[in-house]
């Protein structure tokens, strides 16, 4: 493993470094929890790592709450998500996804931006943010800001919509609906052990219910089941207008079938395609049980 490293201290320096390296091979290093493993496996010649961890910019590493929702800087760590009470109360799915990520040590350095930009189909925080209908905010070397919905962010396995002259700057999570009374929000991670685990299948859901018990907004996404994390749009639409507590067995199964229609899992050393589908169907039903 041999690479050059650049340590920008400000956002301006960061964009300057990106600009300078436009014709070179470079990678961003945030928590480096995936990057170092990847480079160890497949060393690349002539590679420069832009180390993001020294950049001092609260918009890049902090959290900000507003009437519109919550904005996390791309360098916000998994640990900071876990200990944030407001996130836990308003967006439990995000809390749980971060809490289930790897181990305590790794969560100290692993960042939300890193989890998204790695674009792993089994990304835990990524899966939660898709269910939350988040928006990704990019900053380009020209100083332009560009926002895209997270559903358009993932293009394929380890491929994102980020341009070569862009940096993922922040992620905005929209506020819950004003009429929301109860939130059913959780992250179901399937693996064989309780920590240091890569998801075999994951399901994120964030379902908002009004005073009458009627579902007014729903976000459901699946991980480790397709080339990218996927938003199960038809399954979400199916729930709107239904009473959460009165969903019948038939409806549960119909919902699970709709979730499953977004899955095209592979067979690998962690599990077979059959298992992933079977479990995805079952845990989708379990939301209402």
């Amino acid at each position, binding site marked *: 493993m041999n690479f050059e490293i650049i340590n920008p201290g400000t956002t301006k320096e960061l964009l300057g470094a990106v600009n300078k390296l436009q014709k070179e091979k470079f990678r961003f290093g945030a928590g480096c929890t995936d990057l170092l493993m990847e480079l160890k496996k497949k060393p690349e010649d002539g590679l420069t790592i832009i180390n993001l961890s020294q950049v001092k910019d609260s918009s890049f590493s902090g959290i900000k709450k507003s009437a519109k929702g919550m904005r996390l800087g791309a360098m916000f760590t998994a640990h900071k998500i876990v200990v944030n009470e407001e996130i836990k109360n308003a967006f439990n799915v995000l809390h749980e996804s971060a809490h289930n990520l790897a*181990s305590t040590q790794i969560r100290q350095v692993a960042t939300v931006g890193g989890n998204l930009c790695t674009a792993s189909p089994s990304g835990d925080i990524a899966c939660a943010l898709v269910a939350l209908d988040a928006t990704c905010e990019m900053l380009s070397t020209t100083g332009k800001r560009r926002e895209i919905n997270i559903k358009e962010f993932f293009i394929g396995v380890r491929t994102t919509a980020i341009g070569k002259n862009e940096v993922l700057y922040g992620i905005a999570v929209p506020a819950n609906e004003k009429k929301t009374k109860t939130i059913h929000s959780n992250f179901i991670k*399937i693996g*064989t*052990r*309780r*920590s*240091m685990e*890569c998801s*075999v299948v994951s399901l994120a859901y964030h379902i908002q219910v009004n005073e009458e018990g009627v579902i007014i907004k729903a976000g459901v996404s699946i991980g480790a089941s397709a080339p990218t994390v996927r938003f199960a749009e038809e399954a979400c639409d199916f729930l709107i207008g239904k009473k959460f507590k009165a969903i019948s067995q038939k409806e549960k199964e119909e919902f699970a079938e709709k979730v499953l229609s977004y899955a095209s899992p592979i067979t690998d*050393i*962690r*599990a*077979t395609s*059959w*298992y992933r589908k*079977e*479990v995805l169907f*079952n*845990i989708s*039903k*379990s939301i209402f049980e």
Partner: protein
Amino acid sequence: MLHVGGGAKIYRSDGCGTTLKIDPYGYCTIITGSNEIGQGSETVLAMMASEELGIDLKRIKVINTDTDIKPWDVGVHASRTSFVAGNSLLGAIKILKEKLNKKAGELLKTAHSEFEYDGGEIISNKTKEHIALDKVVREMHFSEPNELAIASFFYEPTSKFQDKEFKGNVSGSYAFAAQAIEVEVDTYTGNVRVLDIYVAQDVGKVLNPLLLGGQIEGGILQGVGYALTEELLMHEGKILNSNFHNYKMLTAADIPNIHFFPIETNDKEGPYGAKGVGEAPLIPTAAAIANAVCNALDIEVIDLPITPEKVLRAIAEKKKLKKEIV
């Protein structure tokens, strides 16, 4: 479950050698053939020497890392170290004490040869007169006939190497254990969660309760891993998961509630009646977990590890079978 408890002759010798010395300042060095791999044998051997020689633990050093000076030992396995290295150490202590007793008798001007060792002193059993251990060592060394306080001993257990039919009394000691395990099976995911493990094990005489507990807990978690997650996956002769990312060893987060009931016995062959305890806790675990899963789901599990996928397939097959019968 019945397993070897120290001194199992799986090689032509299951012995262990010890060289023991006490220096003129009363510091003791144990050069043992046995190794320390985290099981705590250094502590246990130093405790034995301290008990026998009345030397403070801080003044005892265990040398077990240098094969240029270590006597023979076959390795850390088969629950053998405390048993074999302990007996070897006690043998060396006995020889050294004979030398020290003789010199102490001379210095205390007593004809009898019964002494106690306590608090750095050698004390006459009969007269209660005493003399400092280090002084005796110095007198051995610096007066004629000059001699060092050093002794070597090789212990070979009484067990016999197995015959051509793989039969025979192969072990110096045997351990017995039983485990009762309660599991929870998630029929949606096939995940087996081990809730409580009740362990009853014949542990011989307990030498160090804390280390014993560590051996039991560590062994059990290995047993749970053996039952549920640990598997070398092969394809066309190649190992697919040759790293700890995909070869799933369990972690501290997976430890079930362990209820340990040590059955303390006196093994006539073991040092102070002790016997090996390291492997016995991981041997019955997988079988008990498999039985618990069978009991919970009324299915048969005969293939380890019991992965979530195997459980889910077994449930699916059972459902299919029921439908066919109906």
